[in-house]
């Protein structure tokens, strides 16, 4: 059976205020490779319940996509369908140029954070039936768009690397001579939540401060540092070093406790709480010198 379908899409003028001025491309921007399927088949397949999604499209190279626009797709609904399933279906069945990152389908690789109906969410972890239709799917805000739903993550990675996200234990002996270190279950529990971050960037994208201050470390990187700073296996001196990185101008003080990071984190990491705890730690440390 041929799965190549004509795109059941009706182009609409973009609604998003940010998109004002974008032209609405010609209604029949055909992406089906010139193949025109008979309508009967298309209808038959779409007879059941469908989900209406509006997907942000942009491609610097392709005519008609250089001006950002929204494309509409109607995807047959299945129980348990996630936002990722819906865009994958749209890509595989209607328009193979629809581009987004994804891999694990189970909320561990962190590739598919999108801006769905006005909130940063992981595509694979968001049940589409929980959302209001049409479901508006955009790339993460505050990051440059490479193409469609793909954003440039370099800045995010840079920030993550800035906090020296690695154990500092300098003189690790040869592997054969290593002795297991001890860590109390309580201490492990303390860092448990912080260690769950999957680098999806949702938090960073949701933070107004990070949007305004490009150098702000951002919630994810601060949380990463938290994981190390709170781990008893590293000694005090290193912890101080870590705090020094964090209390620089673009560090923890920039956080204005807006909480949106905490609200969007797909791994339920209490980011604001961790940031606040680090602020207190830093103050405590500084008070010592007074």
């Amino acid at each position, binding site marked *: 059976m041929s799965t190549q379908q004509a795109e059941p899409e009706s182009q609409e003028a973009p609604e998003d205020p940010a998109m004002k001025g974008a032209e609405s491309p010609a209604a029949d921007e055909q992406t089906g490779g010139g193949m025109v399927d008979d309508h009967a088949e298309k209808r038959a397949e779409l007879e059941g319940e469908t989900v209406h999604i509006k997907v942000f499209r942009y491609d610097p190279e392709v005519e008609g996509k250089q001006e*950002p626009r929204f494309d509409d797709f109607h995807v047959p609904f299945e129980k348990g369908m996630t936002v990722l399933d819906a865009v994958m279906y749209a890509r595989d069945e209607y328009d193979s140029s629809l581009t987004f990152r994804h891999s694990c389908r189970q909320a561990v690789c962190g590739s598919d954070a999108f801006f769905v109906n006005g909130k940063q969410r992981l595509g694979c972890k968001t049940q589409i039936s929980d959302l209001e239709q049409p479901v508006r799917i955009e790339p993460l805000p505050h990051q440059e*768009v*490479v193409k469609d739903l793909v954003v440039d993550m370099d800045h995010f990675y840079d920030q993550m690397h800035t906090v020296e996200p690695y154990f500092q234990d300098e003189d690790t002996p040869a592997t054969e001579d290593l002795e297991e270190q001890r860590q109390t279950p309580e201490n492990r529990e303390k860092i448990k939540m912080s260690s769950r971050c999957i680098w999806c960037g949702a938090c960073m994208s949701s933070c107004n401060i990070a949007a305004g201050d490009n150098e702000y470390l951002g919630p994810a990187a601060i949380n990463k540092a938290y994981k190390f700073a709170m781990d008893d296996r590293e000694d005090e001196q290193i912890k101080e070093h870590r705090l020094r990185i964090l209390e620089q101008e673009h560090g923890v003080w920039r956080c204005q*406790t*807006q*909480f949106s990071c905490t*609200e969007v984190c797909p791994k339920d990491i209490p980011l*604001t709480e961790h940031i606040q*705890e680090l602020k*207190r730690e830093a103050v405590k440390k500084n008070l010592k010198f007074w």
Partner: protein
Amino acid sequence: MSQSYNRGLVEDFGRWKEFSAGMWAWIFHKFTGWVLIGYLFTHIAVLSTSIGGAQGETTMVGGEELNVYTATLQGLEGLFLIRLLEVGLLAVAVFHILNGLRLLMVDLGVGLEAQDKSFYASLVLTGAITVASVPTFLTGVTI
């Protein structure tokens, strides 16, 4: 070569509809803070008439000779607009105080789960206190 698309600042403001409690709290707190510091400057300016007042300067108000300080204050207080602004100031101050308390709690790591609720509570309380104070603020003013 590839280039990327920067959606620019517009998007920040374009998304205000999607802001969450914490973001609104931040915006309101900022706004009220600025109003308060602005007011503080004006306030001192107005109170500066007391320097003259202390030196016995007077002015004529409705045929009565009054201390400039007293006259200025009462003159201002006599204006309906000023009374309204005072109610506004109260609202601003109350919100800033309540949300400030909320922020202090957040800083101490207390009740973080309720941060959105406490913001709404601040709003509601501010509204209530403001409304309740209207009679007091508007007594004795002639429109």
